[in-house]
């Protein structure tokens, strides 16, 4: 709004068509994946292929799922800085986990088949997620800053309650929960991998089918209603997709939150910020794949760099949080300047 004078020049400038940019991102993702499989391959392939392959699959799945969920979430809440993880969606996962270990005991919990745990987790997260979202929208009352602040504090609250409940359970069981609740890309259960890729696949298809309706929702509540897409209906639908994606990703590798201090995962925020810069459009048929690819590139490429190039002792998540927090501040402060 401030730079009307520069506008005509900028609006006509589009160096590469959007479809080419998407192809470019895809090539970059494939290159990262190839690099991840090949660089530093010293063990025999019979070992490396399944080992690295499973890790790679997990990274891609998680990156894609969280990115798509974030794009949908941001359109739903009409903001570009709050993400599902930031408001504690993945902390819900530990919460449910803690409750399960608490009520069943660690031994009984260990005997439940993976599939059942996965299903219970998914269902309860979807339920709690919808509840959380309803509370958030009610409190925010259409004010964007209030929405984001409320979302973050809700996230802190969920994390604190979770931690509180964890301390209530037996110290041994607490150990079990702790080991389950740190994001880990190091060991991936193949059964879980198959299950969650199925769930994430379903979530992605559903998200893709929402793309045209999301375009309309981005026009604002009133315009969307006038065009025959009342937000309330779409919101419930889209929230279930978001919960499915975030829950499956979290169940696969554990929550993306780090030590629990301060706002946690900014991963989705970085992804959507980059997606809006690289593929500037309102169309979700471009934004969704663009964010998905960028999410994959950041996790695979980042893991490749962290693991093989810099040999960092720090988990990738901490690095992402560091960069993401910076991006968040810049977005906020730039918005104020505009």
């Amino acid at each position: 709004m401030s730079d009307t004078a520069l506008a005509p020049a900028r609006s006509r400038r589009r160096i590469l068509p959007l479809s080419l940019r998407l192809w470019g991102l895809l090539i970059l993702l494939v290159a990262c994946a190839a690099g991840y499989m090949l660089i530093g391959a010293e063990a025999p392939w019979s070992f490396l292929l399944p080992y690295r392959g499973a890790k790679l699959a997990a990274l891609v799945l998680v990156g894609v799922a969280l990115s798509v969920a974030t794009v949908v979430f941001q359109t739903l809440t009409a903001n570009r800085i709050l993400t599902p993880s930031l408001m504690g969606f993945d902390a819900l996962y530990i919460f449910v986990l803690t409750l399960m270990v608490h009520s069943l005991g660690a031994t009984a919990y260990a005997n439940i088949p993976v599939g059942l745990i996965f299903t219970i987790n998914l269902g309860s997260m979807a339920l709690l997620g919808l509840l959380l979202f309803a509370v958030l929208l009610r409190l925010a009352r259409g004010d964007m800053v209030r929405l984001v602040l409320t979302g973050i504090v809700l996230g802190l609250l969920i994390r604190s309650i979770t931690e509180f409940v964890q301390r209530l359970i037996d110290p041994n069981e607490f150990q079990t929960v702790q080991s389950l609740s740190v994001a880990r890309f190091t060991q991936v259960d193949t059964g879980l991998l198959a299950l969650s890729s199925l769930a994430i696949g379903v979530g992605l298809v559903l998200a893709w089918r929402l793309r045209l309706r999301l375009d309309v929702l981005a026009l604002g509540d009133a315009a969307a209603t006038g065009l025959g897409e009342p937000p309330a209906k779409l919101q419930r639908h889209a929230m279930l997709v978001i919960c499915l994606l975030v829950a499956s990703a979290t169940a696969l590798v554990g929550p993306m939150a780090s030590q629990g201090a301060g706002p946690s995962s900014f991963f989705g925020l970085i992804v959507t910020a980059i997606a809006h810069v690289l593929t500037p459009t309102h169309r979700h048929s471009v934004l969704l794949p663009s964010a998905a690819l960028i999410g994959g590139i950041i996790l695979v490429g980042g893991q490749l760099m962290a693991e093989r190039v810099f040999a960092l002792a720090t988990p990738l998540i901490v690095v992402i949080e560091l960069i993401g927090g910076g991006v968040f501040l810049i977005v906020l402060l730039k918005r104020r300047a505009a």
Partner: protein
Amino acid sequence: MIRISGLSHSIAGTPILRDIDLTIPRGGITALIGPNGAGKSTLLSLIARLQKIQTGTITVGDLTIGTASDQDLARTLAVMAQSSHVQARLRLSELVSFGRYPWNRGRPGPQDHARVEQALERFGLIPLRDRFLDEISGGQRQRAFAAMAYVQDTPYLLLDEPLNNLDIAAARDLMSLVRDMADTDGRTVVIVLHDINYATAFADHLVVMKDGAIAAQGRPDQTVSEALLEQVFGTRARVEILQDRPVVLV
């Protein structure tokens, strides 16, 4: 025809609309006027289904708000909302083509493109078609939203204070476009206006509201009078008849 019967609405215990019965005739422009807080915008947003109806019924044509399908309503009733602020970064032509959404569900065909072209032409938006919405003036943006409502091809069109923040040139310009939609295309337009003089100049039918009820309605020349101004708006102002229509001297 829009029929409203027994419509009441309250927000946080405060009554906004009290038992309204109103029939808005088919065709022409009906303007809702009244002092601030009279309930004009609430009434319009209930017809536009932007808020849930608490008591009473509203029918638009043969569709009942609340029970008719969203798609049928979107093909019958276009809404130009009060604050047309769009979060997405859109080009003007992209915005206008969203007006076709109720007909194509987001998959535009050749007919849709032709319709959008025609609308851009008619609303004088061709030179601005590739501009982003945040790069054009308020008047141009309102014209774009009017074009969007136009391509929605609905028999009914609702506008909530579209002249807010527009200068006189942009305001007159927009009102003539709306007038033209009513005359040439036979649309039924319901519009909330702040300025009585715009209402008397452009509307065929006035509905005057006060304290959540209908205070008066009828043709502008038979409705607007010094007595009405004092009674409804609580201000003494002279009303002159100029070129067969009442003008409030402010």
